[in-house]
């Protein structure tokens, strides 16, 4: 079983990202589970959401403490929240930042991918909502979900031009990380 923890702030769509990543994984033929850290939802407050991937039915219900993967939607969280907590060798971190040399202690053996998802989201969607862009980065960096299931997940959630725009944002991130991964 592999586990993903998404760090964001209320309003950035972390819970939606968890749902859509898990849906794409399920479409790809594995068992998956998505759930939020059930906080008191407030716009701007640090939030977490989780995804599990497994070849067998998933029974575990605890939150994710030792993630294989993390997505950090908001670079200002680093410092406020120990986003790398519980990560170990082989882990993969996808961090939205325009400054690749962000200041944080990364656990040994954790591969970090940085991407300026905010700029991509602003250019493609016109709003700084980075969840769908980071889903593309996650797909490329980890291989847990394919690009086609991811597009299907986005089409299931958004309609018409909104779906197209989100797919374009995810694809840009996928291609950008794909070169690095």
């Amino acid at each position, binding site marked *: 079983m592999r586990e993903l923890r998404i760090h964001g702030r209320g309003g950035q769509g972390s819970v939606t990202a968890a749902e859509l990543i898990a849906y794409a994984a399920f479409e790809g033929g594995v068992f998956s589970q998505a*759930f939020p850290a059930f906080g008191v939802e407030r716009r701007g407050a640090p939030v977490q959401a989780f995804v599990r991937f497994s070849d067998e039915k998933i029974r575990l219900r605890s939150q994710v403490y030792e993630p294989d993967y993390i997505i950090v939607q908001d670079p200002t969280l680093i410092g406020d929240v120990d986003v790398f907590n519980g990560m170990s060798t082989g882990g993969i971190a996808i961090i939205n930042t325009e400054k690749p040399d962000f200041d944080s202690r990364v656990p040994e053996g954790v591969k970090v991918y940085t991407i300026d998802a905010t700029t991509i989201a602003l250019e493609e969607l016109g709003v700084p909502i980075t969840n769908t862009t980071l889903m593309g980065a996650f797909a490329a960096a980890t291989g847990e979900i394919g690009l086609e299931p991811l597009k299907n997940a986005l089409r299931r959630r958004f309609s018409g031009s909104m779906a197209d725009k989100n797919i374009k944002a995810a694809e840009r991130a996928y291609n950008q990380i794909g070169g690095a991964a």
Partner: protein
Amino acid sequence: MLEFMEGSHAVAEIVKRCRPQVIAAYPITPQTHIVEDLAQMVANCEIDAEYITVESEFSALSACLGASAAGSRVYSATTSQGLALMFEVCFNAAGMRQPIVMTIANRSLGAPLSIWNDQQDSISLRDSGWLQFYAEDNQETVDLHMIAYKVCEDHDILLPAFVCFDGFILSHTYEPVAIPTQEEVDAYLPAFNPYQRLDAENPLSFGMYATPEYYMEFRYEVDRAQQRAKDAFIKAGREFGEQFGRDYSALVEGYRLEDADTALVAMGSICGTAKDAIDEMRDAGKKVGLLKIRTFRPFPAQEIAAALSGVSTVAVLDKNISLGSGGAVGTEVKAALYGSGISVYDYIIALGGRDVRKRDIAAVVDLAEKGEGDMFYGLRTEVL
């Protein structure tokens, strides 16, 4: 066919297929998504039901009670403070023998205010006469709704039921679920055939005044119906298994219990985490198993005693507390095992949404094997 969806949405989908004729509910976290979905389905004419919007949970269940007495299949859903507000109507619904099915998205009770999960709400209605079924995952939640209607509407039973699933932990989790088709549900669950109904041509009264010469017999009849519900559940669960391949013919379900020295006993979603923890403990050479209680009411005392007859130590996980006494499940498991010589310890755990990890389950097993129990597990002593 498995579909990927949120637990609350899965509940709404199966309730739709159970064809309720009247739905009355008041939204409350974490039940909200269920009733939002159902309200939308009614508005879209996907369900041929009357959706009664009400100003409180007291009115919601009162509306269901009246509609049920008038001969309709009814549905409601609530949690926590909402269920507390229904307290009086719950006793009346059972006493009037109305087969109402209500989903409980289990949540703690205030004060202090908490929106998070434990099972204090439904457990606190244990003496109301309602059947209480607890689900481990969202598939079981879906399936128990169909079984609940079948058991409740059986003319030998005629009792209301809670289908309990852990708030947030299941209600807000997306996972694969098989939702039976309308045709499949219709084949399993026939149209509601009321035993009696309010009828202006043949007037009846429900819940009339009972003098001391009659009251006790009414209570006795409810208790007898609860006892009969064990066989009705087993039968309905077996029929479900025959049709859908998922067997629910057991009131309790063992996991790796065959040669276990120590058994955990639990209800609801914590059973999933416990099973993963047990696999790890087994790999480390510990003989540990789990007994999952599916029906808290009727309480399967004999089935529990039979299932646990081979173990020496029992650790009960209670997501509730009868303040001043102990956990409700542990108290009844101790009574079920009275005189057996088995050591039974109770652990109050996960109140108000405190997360439970595999290592917590292992720690409880260690405590029980050391003979330390009847305690709150995981207290933050630094804040006491």
